[in-house]
C-alpha cells in the first residue's frame, strides 16, 4: 500500500490509534497526535509502510465482517477485541503499528509537556540537577581491597 492509499484510510487509522492509546488524565487520544507520524513513516520507509498497511488491511477486513458500519462504529470493547485478534494473526505488522504509534504519541510536544517535561530539543538547555552531597562511601571503602592481586 502506498502512503497515499494509507492516507486515504486516515479515518480508520485515526480510530485505530485512538483505541491503542485512548484519551485520559489530560492526555488527548493518539489519533490526534500520532497520525501524521505514522503517515510520515509510511512515506519514508517502504518496509514500514508495508507493515502498517498490512495491519490496517487486517483491521478493515475484520471490522467489515463484524459490522456494517466498520471499525469506527464499534464499541470500545469490541474495537479492542478486534485489535487483539489482529495482533494474534499478524503479530509483526501489529507490532509495527503499536511501536510507531507510541513513537509518534510520545515524541509529540503536547505529550511531552503533559508528562511534565519541557518539550523541544534537549540541547542547549540540558537539565538542572540540584547539587547534593555524595552519600558517605566510608562503609564501602572500609572493606579494604576486594580485588585479587595478580
Amino acid at each position, binding site marked *: 500500500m502506498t502512503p497515499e492509499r494509507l492516507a486515504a484510510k486516515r479515518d480508520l487509522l485515526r480510530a485505530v490509534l485512538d483505541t491503542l*492509546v485512548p484519551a485520559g488524565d489530560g492526555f488527548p487520544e493518539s489519533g490526534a497526535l500520532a497520525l501524521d507520524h505514522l503517515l510520515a513513516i509510511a512515506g519514508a520507509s517502504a518496509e514500514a509502510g508495508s507493515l502498517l498497511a498490512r495491519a490496517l488491511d487486517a483491521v478493515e477486513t475484520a471490522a467489515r465482517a463484524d459490522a456494517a458500519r466498520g471499525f469506527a462504529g464499534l464499541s470500545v470493547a469490541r474495537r479492542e477485541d478486534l485489535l487483539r485478534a489482529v495482533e494474534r494473526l499478524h503479530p509483526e505488522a501489529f507490532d509495527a503499528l503499536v511501536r510507531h504509534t507510541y513513537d509518534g*504519541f510520545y*515524541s509529540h510536544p503536547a505529550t511531552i509537556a503533559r508528562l511534565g517535561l519541557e518539550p523541544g530539543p534537549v540541547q542547549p538547555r540540558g537539565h538542572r540537577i540540584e547539587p*547534593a552531597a555524595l552519600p558517605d562511601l566510608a562503609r*564501602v*571503602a572500609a572493606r579494604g581491597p*576486594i580485588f*585479587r592481586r*595478580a
Partner: protein
Amino acid sequence: MATDDRSDVLVIGAGASGAAVAWRLAGAGIGVVCLEQGDWVNPSAYPHWRADWELHRHTDWSAEPNVRRLTQDYPVNDQASPISPLMYNAVGGSTIHWSAHFPRFRPSDFRVKSLDGVADDWPIDYATLEPYFDLNDRMMGVAGITGDPAYPPKSPRQTAPIPLDTLGLTIARGFERLGWHWWPSDSAILTRDYDGRRACVNCGPCDLGCPIGAKASTDITYWPKALAAGARLVTRARVREITLGPDGLADGAIYYDGDGRERAQKARAVVLAANGIGTPRLLLNSRSARFPDGLANRSGLVGRNLMFHPYAMARGVFDRPLGGHRGPIGCSIISQEFYETDLARGFVRGYSFQVARGLSPIASANGGSVGDRVPWGGEHRRAYAERFDRTITVAIIGEDLPETDNRVDLDPTLTDSHGIPAPRVSYQLSENSRRMLDHGIARAREVLLAAGAREVAFNPLLRAGGWHLMGTARMGRDPATSVVDAEGRCHDVPNLYIVDGSVMVTCAGVNPTSTIQAVALHVADGMIRRRA
C-alpha cells in the same frame, strides 16, 4: 590506481584505539596517515538539537549498523547470534555513540588462567598498563572519585563524579542496605570544563553522541592533538585489503576514496584499529598466496574467540518520580560485589552491575532494554503513568570466556556498497555465561527491592547489546595459539599491528574502552622504542 605518498605508519580506523595510537606516534615524530571509512560528525548534526531527538535512536542514529544503514556502514550478518553487534563508523568511531563508562580491567582480569584455570593469561599485566591507563584518563577526561576498594589506587580523576541525582541516591540506598560494594562510576564525561572542553549539562541521551563535547569521543579528545602533531587523517576512505611487499611484510593498503576511486596507501608499518569485527574482516579479506586463509592467520585464530559482554537487564518500578531523564543516560553507579570468582555461585569469573538513568518517554512506552512494552488499549494510560519516570534499570555485564566456535568470518554473499565481503557473526551464549547472568538477575532483583522497588522485570539477554567486540585476533606469546604478541605485532607479519578490542585475550566484566586505549598506547610506545 592512484598511489599516495608513502607514510611511516598507516593506521586503519579513527576510533578509540586508532586515535590514541595515531596521537602517540605523531607526537614522537613518526609520520602517520589514518584511513577512516566514516567522516567527521558535525556537532550541529546531532539529534539533540531537534524536538524529535528520541525518534532518531531507532533510525539514523541507531547504534546498529544494520538498522542505521548509512553509506559509511557495512552490513553484518548476525542471524546466527543472539546478540547484535553495535558500532559506529566515523572519526571517533564507536566513542561517538558510547555511554562513556570508563572502568579499567582489574589485575585478576589479566591472569584468568593462573587464578581460575580457564581461558588464558594475557602476556601483559595491570602494572604494565597502569601508566597508560593514567595517560589515557588525562586525554579523555574522567569524572569519578578515588578510593574505590575494587581497584588498586588510581590517579586523581579529572573531574568530580557525575551527579547521582534522585535515581542514583535511591539505588545507592539499596546497595547500602545489603552491605554490597558500590561506587560512583568512572565516566569519560566532564562535570567541569577541562582541556578546552565544556562540562556536561545533563541533557541525557549520551548514546546519541554529545553535541557539546562533554562526553569524550576521540574526534574531540585525541584527534585534534594528533593532527596538530602532524598526523594526517583521510575520511570516507574504505580499506579493501592490506597489501604485502615481496619480503612478506605489510606495505600498505588498497582503499576506496570518497569518490569511489581505488587508491593505494603505502607505509612502512600498518596498524589495524577497526574493531573486533572490522579487523578480522579486513584480515580475512586480505588473502594472498602467502596467506591463503587470510593475512596473519597461520594460527587459524583470526576471527575466532569472539567475545561480547552478554548483558542481562533488570528494571525496578518505584512509587515516586526519580528524575531519570536528567543526567548521562548510561552512568551513575557501578557495583563489583560479584566480580571475582566464587565457585559456590555456580560459575567461574564474575560480573558488574551498572545502574543507568531512567527511560525517556518513547523508551518508557516500548519497555526500554527490558523490552516489556506498556500494554495498549484501556489499560495504557494507567500502566504508562505507573512506569514513566519511576524506573531504575540495573545492567548485569558478565565476563564472556573465549570460545573458538564464537567467531567472525566472511559472509559468502553479503557485501558492503563497494562489493567487499561483509562479516558474518556466529555466537552462542555459554552455559557459564548463562549461569552468571541468572545469578546477576537474582541479585539485581534483591538490590532493586532493597532500594524500594515494588516490582522488578528483567530481560535475560539483551539482543541489542553488542557494544563490545573483542578477542578475534588475540594476544599471546605462542604463535600457534595467538595472532599478535605482547606488543600488538602479528606473529606472522611483524610490521603489522593490531590495537583494537580484537587483541583482548579475555574480556573482564567491565566495559573495555579504557583498557583498549591503554593497550593501544602501550603498543604505540613499543613501536616508538623499536624505531629509536
